[in-house]
C-alpha cells in the first residue's frame, strides 16, 4: 500500500524570474530541490541546521536557509538564487565588490554571503559597520574573510548608488 504521507506534490513558483513547476515530497528542502531538479548549485548545504548561511536564497525577497526551508512552502513564491544576480554576463555590484576586495579564500560560503548582502542592501542602501555585522551574523566563513567581506559590502553599496545615479 502506498504511504500517502510521502506522496509528491506539484508546486508552482517563480525561480529567478521564470515560472516553474516541480514535484516535491514533504521532506524535501529548498537546497535539494534546486540542486536535483534545477541544477542550481550556488546554494550549498553545509551545516544543515540553519547556522552557517551557505544555503541562503531569497524567498519573496526574504533571505531564508535553504537547508531548513521546506520545498513545498515555495508554492506560489518568488525565489531568487545567486545564479540570478549577474545580468547578461554582467556581475551584480556585490559580486564585483567581493572579487575586488578579495572577500573570500575558498569561496564555499560566498554565495550565501552575497545573497544575505543583497537582502541587506535592499533594506539599507548605505549600511554602517554595525548593520553589516548584524545582517551577516548568521553567515559563517571558515577562512574568516570577514574584514574583507565588510569592505566588499560597503563597496557594493557605493557601486550600486553610482550605478543608479548613472541611469537617471
Amino acid at each position, binding site marked *: 500500500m502506498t504511504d500517502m504521507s510521502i506522496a509528491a506534490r506539484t508546486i508552482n513558483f517563480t525561480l529567478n524570474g521564470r515560472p516553474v513547476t516541480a514535484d516535491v515530497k514533504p521532506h524535501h528542502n529548498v537546497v535539494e530541490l534546486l540542486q536535483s531538479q534545477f541544477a542550481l548549485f550556488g546554494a550549498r548545504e553545509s*551545516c544543515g541546521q540553519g547556522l552557517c548561511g551557505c544555503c541562503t536564497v531569497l524567498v519573496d525577497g526574504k533571505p531564508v536557509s535553504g537547508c531548513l526551508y521546506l520545498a513545498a512552502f515555495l508554492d506560489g513564491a518568488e525565489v531568487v538564487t545567486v545564479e540570478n544576480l549577474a545580468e547578461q554576463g554582467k556581475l551584480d555590484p556585490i559580486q564585483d565588490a567581493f572579487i575586488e576586495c*578579495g572577500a573570500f*579564500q575558498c569561496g564555499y560560503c560566498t554565495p550565501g554571503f552575497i545573497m544575505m548582502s543583497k537582502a541587506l542592501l535592499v533594506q539599507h542602501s548605505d549600511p554602517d559597520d554595525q548593520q553589516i555585522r548584524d545582517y551577516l551574523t548568521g553567515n559563517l566563513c571558515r577562512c*574568516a574573510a*570577514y*574584514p574583507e567581506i*565588510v569592505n566588499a559590502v560597503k563597496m557594493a553599496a557605493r557601486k550600486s548608488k553610482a550605478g543608479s545615479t548613472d541611469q537617471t
Partner: protein
Amino acid sequence: MAQMVGEVLNISAESVRIVPRDTDVTPYDMGTLGSRSLFHMGHAVRLAAEDARTKIAELRRELDEPEGSNTPLADLFRKKYGMQAGNIIGTGIFKPDYIPPDAAGLSTNATPFWMVAGTGVEIEVDTETGHVRITRMINVADVGKPVNPKIVETQLSGAALMQLGFSMFEKMQIDGGQVTNASLADYKIPGIHDVPLVMENETVETVQENGPFGAKGVGELATFGLSPAIANAIDDAIGVRLTELPLNAEAVFRAFRAKGNKPLGDD
C-alpha cells in the same frame, strides 16, 4: 600559479587556465603542512613553464625562425607538421633538499623555509564572568615576496581569525572516543561579531632566496603569535597564567578565582 606561468612565458595570467585538481587522480600524500603549496607547487610550475619555454625555443630554431621572432605557436605547428597539429608539454618536478635530524635532533636543513611572525593584542577581561574581549589585534609577518599582495593580506587576516577561534572557544568534546559536539550548534567557530574592532595586518617584504620568484608560504604565518599574545595579555591584565587552550570564559574565570583563593568546584 597562473601568475608564475605568465611570468615565465611572458603571457597574461588571465590566459593561463588551471586544471581543477581532483584527489581521485592525484598521488597519495602524507598530509598538508608547513604552508608549502606555493613554495613546492610554485617551483614545480615554474620548472614546467621553463621547460615549455625551452621547447618552444627549440621548435623555433628547428624551423629556422629568425632570432626574436614571435610567430604564434599555431603557425609554428602548421609549418612543422603541414597541418593544424601538435602541442608543447612542459613538465617540472620539485623536491626540496632535506636533511633528517641526527641523534641529537639537529639538522642543518630541516625545512626549505622558516616562517617568522608576531601578534600583539589589547584585551579587556570581565572579572565577574571571565569573558575576554579583544579590543585590538596587530599581526606582523615576514611574507617573503608576495606573489599576490591582496591574497597574502587576506591569508594573514583569515589565519589570525581562525586561530582566534582555536584560542578562545573551539574545543572538541570527546566522550568514549566520540566527538560529542560535532555540529556548528555546539562547536562554535568565529563569526563576524568575533572579529576584533581594530585589526591590523602588517607585512614585511623579504626575498626568499630559495623560493619561487623570492616567495614563500604564508598560510599559517598569522597563527603563531596569537594564542600566546592573548594568554600573556590575560596575565598582564589579571595576573593569571593560562597554558592550555582554549582561553574561554570558564578557564579564565576558574584561574582568576583560584588565584584569589576562592576556587570553583568541578561542576
